C-alpha cells in the first residue's frame, strides 16, 4: 500500500558567496548533520539518500558516488536526480515517491551547489542546446529578461513593479540567518542599480551562492514518532515541456499553471489565495514574483503587480511570499528548490523562528529552471485525507 509522507527534519548551511573553508563533501555534510539534529535521527536510521546538483557548476561527474563521505550514503542506496534549476524541488518530489512507495521509511534528500567554483552564467549557458541555443544565450538572466519584456509588452507593467518584489524579498531576508544577502534596499536603489539585461537591474536578480540543504522525509508509519507535528506532503507535480528556448510562450509560465492546477485539484484547493497561507516561490528575479503567481492562480493575469504593491505578500499580509528572503537573497542552485521546500516545511511545523507566518495550514514550495519548467510541492499541517 502506498504510504502518506511527511517531512520530519530540515537542515541548511549558512549560505555564503564563497566557502573556501570546505570542499563539496564537507559543505554537504554540514546540511546533513543539521537535518539529522533537527529530526533527532542518526545516519544509521536513514534508509536511502537522494542527491541533486547541476554537474557543470563544479565539474564533477557521478556526484552521487563522489559525495558519499558528505551525504553519509556509504553502504546505503543513493542515486542522483538532476533537472537544472528545478533540481532542488525535483529531488524533494523524488524523496516523496521513494517513501510513498513503501520501499523506505526514512529518506534523506540533499541539494547542494558550490557556484563559486565556476562562472555561473557560462555554466548555465551550457544547459541549452549546443547547436541551436548556445550562441546567443547568456545564462539565466537573458532568458528571464526576455520573459519580463514580453510580459511588460502584454500587460503594461513597469520596471518599478519588478523592483517592488525585490524590495520585499530583500527585506524578508533580514529575518533569515541562513540567507546570503541580508540588506534592505529601496525601490530607487533597485532602479538605480546597473542594468544587466533590459529591463533587469542588478538588484532584481539572485546572487550566486555556495550552500547545501537537506530534508528528511518519513512514512506515516514512523513520522509522528520522529516529529510531533510533521509537515505532511499533500501533493507533488511538475511540467518540463519544450526542447528549445524558442518553444515557450514568453510572458506566461505554462508549466506553473499546469502543475499548480493538477496539485490544487488533487488537494481540493479551490481558492488558493485564501486557502494557502504562505508560499516559498523559486523566484530567481523580481518580475517572476508578479508573473508566476498569476500562473499559479493566486491572482488574475495582469493583476500581479497590483497585488504585490498592496503589501498582501509582505510579512503580515494576506499571503506572505518568501518569508526566507527567497532566491533573490540566496541561490546555491542545486539546493535552491530544496531550500524552498525546507522553508515551507518549517512554516508548517512552526519552526521558522523570526520569519514564522502565524497559523500555517497549507504552504506551497516551488522549483524553477530548465526551459521554463516548474516543480511544485503542497505542504499541509494535517495528514492528507487520501
Amino acid at each position, binding site marked *: 500500500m502506498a504510504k502518506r509522507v511527511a517531512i520530519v527534519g530540515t537542515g541548511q548551511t549558512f549560505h555564503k558567496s564563497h566557502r573556501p573553508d570546505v570542499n563539496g563533501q564537507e559543505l554537504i555534510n554540514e546540511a546533513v548533520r543539521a537535518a539529522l539534529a533537527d529530526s533527532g535521527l542518526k545516519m544509521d536510521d536513514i534508509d536511502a539518500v537522494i542527491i541533486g546538483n547541476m554537474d557543470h557548476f563544479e565539474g564533477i561527474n557521478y556526484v552521487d558516488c563522489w559525495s558519499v563521505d558528505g551525504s553519509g550514503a556509504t553502504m546505503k542506496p543513493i542515486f542522483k536526480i538532476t533537472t537544472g534549476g528545478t533540481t532542488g524541488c525535483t529531488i524533494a518530489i523524488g524523496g516523496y515517491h521513494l517513501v510513498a512507495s513503501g520501499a523506505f521509511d526514512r529518506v534523506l534528500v540533499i541539494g547542494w551547489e558550490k557556484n563559486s567554483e565556476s562562472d555561473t552564467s557560462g555554466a548555465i549557458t*551550457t544547459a541549452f542546446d549546443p547547436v541551436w541555443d548556445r550562441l546567443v544565450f*547568456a545564462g539565466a538572466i537573458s532568458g528571464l529578461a*526576455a520573459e519580463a519584456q*514580453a510580459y511588460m509588452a502584454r500587460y503594461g507593467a513597469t520596471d518599478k513593479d519588478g523592483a517592488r518584489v525585490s524590495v520585499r524579498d530583500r527585506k524578508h531576508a533580514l529575518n533569515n540567518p541562513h540567507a546570503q544577502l541580508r540588506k534592505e534596499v529601496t525601490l530607487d536603489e533597485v532602479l538605480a542599480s546597473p542594468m544587466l539585461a533590459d529591463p533587469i537591474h542588478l538588484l532584481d536578480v539572485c546572487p550566486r551562492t555556495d550552500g547545501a540543504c537537506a530534508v528528511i522525509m518519513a512514512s506515516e508509519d514512523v513520522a509522528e514518532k520522529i516529529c510531533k507535528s510533521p509537515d505532511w506532503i499533500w501533493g507533488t507535480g511538475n511540467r518540463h515541456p519544450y526542447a528549445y528556448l524558442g518553444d515557450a510562450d*514568453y510572458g506566461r509560465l505554462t508549466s506553473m499553471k499546469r502543475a499548480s492546477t493538477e496539485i490544487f485539484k488533487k488537494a481540493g484547493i479551490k481558492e488558493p489565495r485564501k486557502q494557502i497561507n504562505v508560499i516559498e516561490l523559486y523566484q530567481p528575479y523580481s518580475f517572476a514574483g508578479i508573473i508566476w503567481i498569476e500562473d499559479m492562480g493566486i491572482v488574475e493575469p495582469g493583476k500581479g503587480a497590483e497585488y504585490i504593491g498592496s503589501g498582501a505578500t509582505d510579512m503580515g499580509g494576506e499571503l506572505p511570499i518568501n518569508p526566507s528572503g527567497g532566491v533573490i537573497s540566496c541561490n546555491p542552485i542545486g539546493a535552491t528548490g530544496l531550500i524552498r521546500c525546507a522553508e515551507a516545511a518549517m512554516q508548517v511545523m512552526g519552526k521558522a523562528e523570526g520569519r514564522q507566518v502565524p497559523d500555517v495550514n497549507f504552504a506551497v514550495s516551488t522549483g524553477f529552471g530548465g526551459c521554463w519548467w516548474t516543480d511544485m510541492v503542497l505542504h499541509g499541517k494535517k495528514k492528507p485525507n487520501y
Partner: protein
Amino acid sequence: MAEKEYIVIESGEAAQPFDYAVGMHGSKFFTELRDNKKLMGVRCPKCKMVYIPPRGVCGPCFEEMKDFVEVGPGGVIGTYTILRFAFIDPETGQQKPVPYGYGFIKLDGADTLFQHYIDIVDEKKIKVGARVEAVFADERKGTIRDILYFRVID
C-alpha cells in the same frame, strides 16, 4: 597560524570536446542555410504547428514530423533583451563582448520563436513586434553563425 590559508585547486585548461550530431532535421536546416540562405521549419501533420528549429517530434502531439517548410527570412521580434553584462562564453572561454541584442524572432510562417542576435545600432527601434530580417554571412559553413544577426527594418 595567525590566518588560515585556504588553497584552491584550479582545473586549468581542462576541456571536453564534443561532436554533436544534429540528425536528419538539423542537417536539412544547415545545408539549406549554407547553400541557399533558406530557413527551414518543420510542420506537425496533426496540429499543423510549424517548428523552428526543425525536429523529429511534435511534443504536444507526439507525432513524427517530416514536412519541411521554408520560414522567414523576415519576421517580428517576439521578445528580446539587450545584454549589458559580461560573462565567460563557454564556447570560447573568453568574456563575451557586450552589449548585444538578444532576440526571440517570430519568423514569418513559423509558430515557435527563433533565437538569435539582433543588431542594436539604434536601440530605440528594438521593440516587441518590430519587423526584422535575417542578415546572412557571405561565407557560410553550415552553422548557426551563417546568420550574422537580425536587423530591424522600418
